[in-house]
């Protein structure tokens, strides 16, 4: 049966659409594990702030949101929140909320926030499809879309509830890259403007926009170096840069950075270079080659000298912002460790070991280099982009775990190109073969001078061999197709397993297994936060390590001293100092900052390793950075250099507020094991004079302490306490009062 061309076309379209819809469905549904297992809840730390900000936006106007001064964080400093956040995410959910309301679908803002990341992952799959289609063809595009839809490297940041900037940023990244390629290919100012518009959206959404700001100029720069400059590049780049930069400066948090900070200088430099190249091209068409060579050589030297002098001059005079710490930590890997403990302390900023790459992309990781090599076969202008992207992306992902996220798309694209090339060659089961061969090459490998001419043979014994050759071909094709289909199936299982096991925990609620195999939820965080919400005055100030600042703000709705927006290192160091010094030193600090409650996370009872004692050294280090005379990291180790919490613990360790709060009442009477550090806590009672225990959750995971008020008689709290307890004993009522106290506690 012969189908007409138009029928084939419409079937093709139908298939494409249904495949893409299926992929989007798979992408969304594989991100729903946590909603099904737990509930529709915001995850982790940063999302809680984004959620709080979104609520603020929905309940107030947009302008109020932009001018939001938040006095419930960074007490007593406050935070100019509106001017120090990327509003893209909140505005997106605000707009969706409004639109749904307009069509009479009043969905709670929380559900919109929870479902934001999965919804956008479907769009990411589509953007990746478009991008890859530009690189090879639509079949590769569909494969790439399927890969990005389920690759754990991307899922890790986009499961339901992970309401973070990255949730929409990867979609914006891919769509910006796609529109850039489109603009470059067509030399179209329209596509350049579209690219700038998406770039603007990206700048509004995520600080990682700097990646695009450097990728596109680098692509153009490499093209110019390769001698591939043409007018299409000029139009595309000039449009994108001019519009995109102006637009990005409209975001309050970005402001004048694009013309001042060194991270944006590459884009500016390449903009100038493109103008020069255009000018040189014009001159070239007007003069003889010899004159041209002379003019260009001379002006090039002059320009480079002027540009360099200008750059140095501006940097020295301070007009251009100095190189920021984050930038340094990417290039000079030792920098962060020495100079910025707060950057070094975040586990997301740690380098990536190979298992993480494999875990996040499985078989794609070894298809990735193969795909890049195949791209080298054609090496069109847009292919240069993928090559530059893959080198830069893998470098950054190697330096910082969290940048695995920006590498994953290009891995998917390259792997899709590799698989689709294999399918082109081996997936064709029609009987037509040329001459003696059973396979038809897609590309000629580099170095084969006469492509296509090897296989032309005479048609002598064709009839005899045809059947045999067909079988032979079937064997070869079958082997490749079957094995790769098997690997792909395994990849799907791998992705599901990783998503389900590693990336679907809300980290606010912990899941554990009971001995009989049933699931047991540990909900201590929320227990503590709701206790704060219900039992403390509305203006109570809670001190905790900065990790929990956003959660306290979001769930307990109380004022915090420091939070995950680590803008003020000194303030964080103050908290670190209070936590790591003795009660006598810490109490004045607590009083000065009007602290009412102190919150610590203690995992020793449960065996939860992400607790404050394990983070304690970072508190010490950060405090030491500001007060090197008073806090010394070395004092918290045993003389043998070990980090101990048992009876061998150093004096500074035992006297620190953090140690006391963590182990207060923990080992009463008999020694007890700390299940995280596998050490035995001595039964010596821990004495707290300036704090009193306010609340401890079911599994001892969160412990809350109330800061005592000053003594009514003006004594210091230690002597007041010893007086109280001493008096009771003197009167001979010790037994009675002790028993009484015991009964009350129970």
């Amino acid at each position, binding site marked *: 049966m012969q189908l007409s061309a138009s029928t084939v076309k419409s079937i093709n379209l139908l298939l494409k659409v249904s495949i893409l819809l299926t992929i989007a469905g798979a992408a969304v549904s594989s991100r729903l594990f946590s909603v099904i297992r737990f509930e529709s809840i915001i995850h982790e730390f940063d999302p809680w702030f984004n959620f709080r900000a979104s609520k603020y936006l929905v309940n107030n106007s947009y302008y109020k949101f932009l001018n939001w001064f938040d006095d419930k964080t960074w007490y007593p400093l406050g935070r100019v929140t509106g001017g120090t956040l990327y509003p893209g995410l909140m505005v997106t959910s605000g707009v969706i909320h409004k639109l749904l309301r307009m069509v009479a679908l009043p969905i709670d803002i929380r559900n919109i926030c929870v479902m934001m990341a999965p919804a956008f992952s479907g769009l990411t799959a589509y953007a990746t499809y478009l991008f890859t289609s530009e690189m090879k063809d639509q079949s590769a595009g569909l494969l790439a879309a399927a890969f990005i839809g389920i690759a754990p490297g991307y899922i890790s940041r986009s499961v339901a509830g992970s309401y973070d900037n990255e949730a929409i940023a990867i979609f914006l990244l891919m769509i910006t890259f796609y529109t850039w390629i489109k603009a470059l290919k067509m030399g179209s100012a329209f596509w350049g403007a579209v690219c700038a518009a998406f770039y603007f959206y990206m700048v509004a959404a995520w600080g990682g926009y700097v990646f695009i700001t450097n990728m596109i100029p680098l692509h153009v720069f490499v093209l110019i170096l390769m001698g591939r400059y043409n007018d299409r590049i000029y139009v595309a780049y000039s449009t994108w840069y001019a519009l995109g930069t102006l637009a990005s400066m409209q975001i309050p948090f970005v402001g004048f950075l694009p013309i001042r900070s060194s991270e944006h200088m590459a884009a500016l430099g390449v903009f100038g270079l493109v103008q020069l190249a255009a000018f040189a091209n014009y001159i070239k068409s007007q003069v003889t080659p010899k004159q041209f060579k002379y003019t260009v050589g001379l002006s090039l030297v002059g320009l480079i000298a002027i540009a360099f002098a200008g750059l140095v001059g501006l940097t020295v005079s301070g007009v251009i912002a100095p190189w920021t710490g984050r930038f340094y930590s990417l290039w000079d*890997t030792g920098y962060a460790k*020495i100079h910025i403990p707060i950057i070094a302390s975040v586990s997301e900023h*740690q*380098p990536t*070991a*190979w*298992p993480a*790459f*494999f*875990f996040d992309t499985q078989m794609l*990781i*070894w*298809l*990735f*280099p*193969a795909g*890049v*090599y*195949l791209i*080298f*076969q054609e*090496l069109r202008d847009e292919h240069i982009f993928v*090559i530059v992207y893959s*080198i830069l992306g*893998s*470098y950054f*992902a*190697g330096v910082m775990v969290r940048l695995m996220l920006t590498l994953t798309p290009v891995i998917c694209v390259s792997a899709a190109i590799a698989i689709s*090339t294999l399918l082109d*060659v*081996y997936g064709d089961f029609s009987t037509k*073969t040329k001459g*003696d*061969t*059973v*396979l*038809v*090459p*897609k*590309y*000629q*490998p*580099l170095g084969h001078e006469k492509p296509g001419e*090897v296989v032309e043979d005479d048609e002598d014994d064709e009839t005899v061999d045809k059947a045999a050759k067909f079988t*032979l071909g079937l*064997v*070869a094709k079958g*082997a*490749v197709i079957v*094995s790769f289909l098997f*690997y792909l199936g*395994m990849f799907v299982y791998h992705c599901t*397993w990783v998503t389900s*096991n590693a990336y679907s925990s809300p980290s606010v609620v912990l899941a554990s297994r009971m001995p009989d195999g049933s699931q047991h939820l540990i909900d201590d965080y929320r227990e503590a936060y709701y206790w704060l919400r219900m039992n403390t005055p509305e203006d109570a100030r809670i001190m905790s390590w900065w990790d929990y600042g956003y959660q306290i703000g979001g769930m307990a709705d109380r004022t915090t001293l420091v939070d995950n927006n680590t803008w003020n290192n000194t303030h964080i160091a103050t908290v670190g100092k209070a936590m790591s010094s003795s009660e006598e030193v810490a109490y004045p600090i607590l009083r000065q900052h009007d602290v009412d409650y102190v919150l610590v996370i203690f995992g020793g009872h449960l065996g939860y390793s992400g607790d404050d004692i394990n983070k304690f050294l970072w508190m010490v280090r950060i405090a030491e950075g500001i007060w090197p005379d008073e806090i010394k*990291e*070395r004092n918290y*180790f045993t*003389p*043998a*250099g070990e980090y101990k919490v048992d009876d061998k613990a150093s004096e500074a360790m035992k006297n620190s507020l953090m140690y006391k709060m963590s182990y207060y009442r923990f080992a009463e009477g008999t020694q007890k094991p700390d299940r995280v550090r596998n050490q035995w806590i001595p039964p010596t009672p821990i004495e707290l004079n300036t704090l009193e225990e306010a609340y401890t959750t079911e599994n001892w995971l969160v412990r809350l302490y109330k800061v005592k008020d000053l003594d009514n008689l003006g004594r210091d709290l230690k002597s007041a306490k010893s007086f109280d307890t001493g008096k009771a004993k003197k009167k001979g009522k010790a037994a009675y009062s002790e028993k009484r106290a015991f009964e009350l506690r129970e």
Partner: protein
Amino acid sequence: MLLCVVIQGVTLINANITPHWHQRKMHVLAPIVALFLLATTAFAQVFDAEFIRENLPSLSRSKGVIRLNDQNFQKLVGGPRDYHFVVLLTAEAAQFGCHLCKEFGPSFDLLAASYLTDHPDSDNVFFGIADFSESQATYRGLDLTAAPNFWIFPPTEKNIPIGGEHYKFSFPQVDNLEVPAGNFIREVTGKDFKIHYPFRWDKLFSAILTIAGVGVGLVVFKKQLKVFFAKRNVWAAATLVLILMFVAGHMYNIIRKTQYIVADGNNNPVYFVGGFSQQIGVETQIIALTYALLAFCVISLALRAPSLNTGSKQVGVTLALCIVILVAYSFLLAKFHIKNGGYPYHLLNIF
């Protein structure tokens, strides 16, 4: 007698291992030291700043650093004195294996020389090094069990026993120790000075040589290089090498300064260590090679196999490549199991 452990994990001297050596030496030394001390106190020379300044060259082991031993330690440090004395008690001899001592020694010399450059008249601050091999009695007297010790003795009026009042410097875990040590000296003595790093002529020289060499090479092999760098495969190879290095965790090795290879209890080499975010240098190489092999097979399947000129060859090569991929991928999964014990998927169980 001397059990030296430093926070950086340097185990210096364990007396239990070589008790005889110390004791014998002590027997011989002790009377001599006692005699000498007696003699010197009898003809006591007042060690004030003036005297040291005049005799600095004869006392010094390097520019501005006095070489301390059991004989002169008490005289210089025991007081009364009108100067700050900056002392490094160290153990640089190889048998103690004290890395920090060796690392910090040059920094100390640099600090002393820098100080002397800014204060040529020494301004009542002196630097001294007491090495364990020459000052065991002092170490014993100070009841020291660890090295290195970086102390500053402030001026004092009294005649104080060995040790006396002093400020201790705790070695932080950073690379350039001279910076915090310099700050410490500034703080305690109240004298300001800059650290004058010596100009590295050797570095300048090697830089000039390298640039000249590269330049000459560029000029001489201009044509060949032009041809070489115009080749697409050269760039493809460079790109792939970079990518493979990065995705196999090369940056992790550099940043964490991982060991290249480790040994197990029986002194057999271990090529893969456990732990999801742990890795050693050799792992990166093995994994990068495995990835490279797999990628090579895929590329060959896509490009080489179809362009072979007979059908039977094509089939043979294709099947061979499929088998290599299967084996290499099984190897990869097997190694990943070391990293993540709970990982449920296997291919061939042959590794």
